[in-house]
């Protein structure tokens, strides 16, 4: 698993944990038959994924999560989906390659697709 995949997995884990910790939403899922009992297991998995990530990206991810509520932001057609600023063409990774970058405008951790 490369750094970009680890960051995406971390973001997905945080989305799941956000859902599980929201009592109203987890209650609604519980009434529909979904038992959300594995929060501690997911927290351990999150710690494992974070531990395997390069310290630079891990720190940036945690900073963005604390500041913006989302650790990673997607780039679509060169536009940062966090601040909606069009990024310069030279910032784009080579075609077909996904890379992590920082937004020059807002400092968010960006994932180019």
């Amino acid at each position: 698993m490369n750094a970009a995949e680890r960051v995406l997995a971390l973001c997905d884990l945080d989305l799941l944990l956000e859902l599980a910790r929201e009592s109203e939403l987890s209650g609604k899922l519980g009434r529909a038959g979904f038992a959300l009992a594995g929060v501690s297991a997911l927290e351990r998995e999150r710690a494992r994924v974070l531990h395997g990530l390069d310290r630079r990206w891990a720190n940036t991810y945690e900073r963005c999560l604390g500041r913006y509520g989302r650790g990673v932001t997607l780039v679509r057609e060169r536009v940062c989906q966090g601040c909606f600023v069009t990024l310069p063409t030279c910032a784009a990774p080579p075609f077909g390659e996904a890379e992590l970058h920082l937004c020059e405008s807002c400092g968010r951790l960006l994932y180019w697709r």
Partner: protein
Amino acid sequence: MSIAETDPVTTAPLDVVELRHKRRDSALTQLAAAAERIGAVHEPGVLVAALQHSEQLGCSALGRGFAVPHVRSVAVHRPLLLLGRSTRGIEWGAADGQPVHLVAAVLTPSAASARTHVDRVTAVAHAIRLQRTRLRLLEAGATAASALFRELMA
């Protein structure tokens, strides 16, 4: 800030997948591959990991042979419903121990709110709660099953 909002569940694209595998993780991989083929997902590997983590949080098999795996993921770039059918049954780890024959996967982009995602999941689970409905979905052809599922969600 997030200004993106996902389509309501009634208008989200829907596809029917015939599941060939007997194990849950293989079935999730097949569903992720189908989602990528449709163009709703960019990183199927990340989606499979997210679906597995979601199962780790709470088993999506609701008993009586059906499961509603669901995930809100950065790998998904547009909302999608996938209806998976298995004649042999899939070992899903349901509380009642029964194999799963009908899988309704709910995939939501990360830009959507958690509330929107939960509303979509509960709507799907509610739509297929009756055994006669699930039998109709299993016995119909792919196109008819897709139309029937849309009708149930309306």
